[in-house]
Structures are given as C-alpha cells and as structure tokens.
C-alpha cells in the first residue's frame, strides 16, 4: 500500500488524508493522527518547495514495524538531509525579522525519530512513531503487502 503521486502543493490535502486513512487501517489511535499528518505535510512541503522547486514524484508508505509505525517518503529530488540541517535552538518569533526552520522543528517534535538516506535517484526519509501499533506479543509483523523494502 504505497501512494505514488505526481505532487504539487495543491495535493497536500490529499496527502494528509491518505495518512489519516492508512493510519486508520493500521489501527493506530486517532490521538496520534495530528502528529503524523503534521510530520508528513512538513516533510512533503519541503521536498516540493526546496527539493523540486514546485512539483515532482513522491512515494508515501505507512508500514507497521512491530509496535512502531514507519512512514517512508521517497523522492527524486537533490539529496538533502533535514535532520542534519535541523535548527539548533528555536528562537521566539518575536525576536527576529524573518524566523525560519519551523518546518523541520515541527516534523521532529511530532515524531520519535527521523532517518534520511540517499537513494539511487533521490531521498528516502523514514519518519518513526513508536508504540502506536498493538501487535500480537513480540512478533515482527510484516505489512499485508509483504516486507520487501524499497
């Protein structure tokens, strides 16, 4: 179950809805949905705006990994690691003319871990939210579509 989409900013709504739908299917508590939608929206927005300069191909996959949720975002944009480029400290918005770094900060605060790796033709970001899936004791659950990675 992967969403493959030629995306521009007009698709952000649809992408957030996809996250909600898949999270529902996976049985994730709805209290967590806001964090997932926020993290995906921020990550995708940055890829579209800074990576593609507007529009480009995206893949979005939500998959259980034991009790954890992994959200994979794949693009074909120039390599960029948002974690390595996370803002140091957040400066209050009143303090400067043009505050920034909000997106990566929010993305990190909404998830437990964010991993970046360069792929052959772009980037794969893994957004991890821990302990949101209820699994049969100590099993490693493959997703229904199998677990053959990228």
């Amino acid at each position: 179950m992967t969403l493959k989409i030629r995306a521009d900013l007009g698709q952000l709504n649809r992408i957030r809805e996809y996250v909600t739908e898949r999270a529902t299917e996976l049985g994730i508590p709805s209290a967590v949905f806001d964090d997932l939608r926020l993290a995906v929206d921020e990550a995708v927005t940055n890829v579209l705006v800074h990576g593609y300069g507007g529009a480009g191909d995206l893949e979005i996959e939500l998959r259980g990994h034991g009790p954890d949720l992994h959200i994979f975002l794949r693009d074909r944009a120039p390599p960029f690691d948002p974690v390595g480029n996370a803002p140091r400290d957040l400066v209050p918005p009143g303090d400067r003319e043009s505050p920034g770094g909000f997106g990566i900060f929010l993305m990190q605060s909404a998830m437990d871990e964010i991993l970046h790796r360069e792929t052959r033709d772009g980037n794969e970001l893994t957004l991890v939210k821990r302990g949101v899936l209820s699994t049969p004791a100590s099993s490693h659950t493959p997703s229904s579509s199998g677990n053959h990675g990228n």
Partner: protein
Amino acid sequence: MSEKLQIGISREEGEKAVSIMRLKGSVDANTQGTLEAKAKEAIDAGSQRLILDMSGVDYLGSAGMRAIHAISRMLSPDEQGMRSPYIKVVSPSPAAAKVFKTLGFDSFIDIHDSIDDALAAF
C-alpha cells in the same frame, strides 16, 4: 474531508478598526498565500487590528505560522517586540494550539476562546 482555505471577513463596529477573519479549511503551504493576501486587503482597507477565528481550521502547519508572522509584521512593521499587539487568534483546535506552542508563538500572539474575549484584549 479537509478543504482548501476559505476566508470570510467582517469589520467590527466601533473605534478599534478591527477586522475578524473567519478561516475555514486548511492552512498549509498551498493556502498560506491566500491568508496573507486576504489580510493585506483588510489592512489596506483600514483595519489596524485583526482577529483570526480559527475554529474552522482543520489543519495548521508551519506555513500558517509563517503567514501569521508576516501578517503581524504588516500590522506593526517597525516593532520588534516580544508580543504582537495587533493580532489575536481565537479557538484553534488542540492540534493547531500545539503548533503555536511548539514554535513559541504562544508567547508572541494571544490566543482566546471567543471573539469577544479577543476584542476585549486589544
């Protein structure tokens, strides 16, 4: 489900030159420009203070916060203070309120439970 952003604007009667913007839908990178443009219209038409009624907002991300920051600068271009006195936010969802707090905007912009409370705070 969630919708793009629609904005209704009404001008409060009285001395304070307040406009109330009712936001409905999503405030994201796609709609950030709409929000900024509508606010600019209201300001150009004479409003010196804005109330953003967020009770109808189903998504707010960093793009919305950049818009709010830009609007606060339109309203007080010279000031460089800790608190923006000319813009108030009303009834954000819990998720939206969390975004405000996470980014430190809650100490930059007042959040109120009702339009009347926001008006009284100007």
